[in-house]
């Protein structure tokens, strides 16, 4: 298994399935401006933090398991992970916030 396989199987696949299943009911009604803002914050905060960790050897990404494209100390897949995880978790939580509002709670 490569990093790309992990991303596809555990993050991108569930995300695509949920986006498809919940397209009308949830995806089109989500406040996407808020989600884009959240993505921006996630990247601005996680990228430096993760780069510092790898620089100091807290964890590492062996050659051969990634595409080989590095930005700073991290493989490109790691940057994709931040965004995809944010979208997956955000979609699940966003759906429940929409329901909460539909029940009349001022969320």
């Amino acid at each position, binding site marked *: 298994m490569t990093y790309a396989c*992990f991303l596809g199987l555990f993050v991108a696949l569930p995300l695509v399935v949920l986006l498809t299943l919940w397209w009308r009911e949830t995806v089109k009604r989500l406040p996407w401006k808020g989600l884009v803002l959240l993505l921006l914050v996630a990247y601005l905060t996680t990228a430096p933090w993760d780069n510092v960790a790898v620089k100091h050897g807290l964890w590492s990404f062996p050659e051969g*398991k990634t595409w080989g494209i590095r930005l700073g100390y991290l493989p490109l897949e790691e940057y994709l992970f931040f965004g995809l*995880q944010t979208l997956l978790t955000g979609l*699940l939580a966003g759906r429940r916030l929409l329901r909460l509002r539909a029940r009349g709670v001022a969320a």
Partner: protein
Amino acid sequence: MNGPTAYLVHLLAWSLPVLMMQLALVGWRYREHTTAVLRAVLPPALGVTAWLVAGDHLAIRAGIWQFGEGKHLGIHLGAVPIEEALFFLVTNLLVVLGLALFWPRTAEAAGTRGGPAGVTP
């Protein structure tokens, strides 16, 4: 960054102040609805955490990433260092609390008509 607490300290120093601030802001914004909002957003954070820990277990077994010798506590869930599980929990909490804070204030703003992504109460 050395010693068995290196990963844990790096994780908590970065995330705990932000999490505390987010929780305070969620309470300040949602007032009496805070519990309802937390009950809505916490299960997805916990569910995705469990899912990613399972995936991480397989990823570590496959050697996709490795952990610096002597830089974590040495407590594992399967192949997953406890700090790594905590990392998924913390980042998912940051995401769902951030979403609750960036959530627009009115139903109209959430629709296709757009509107301010209200962070102010």
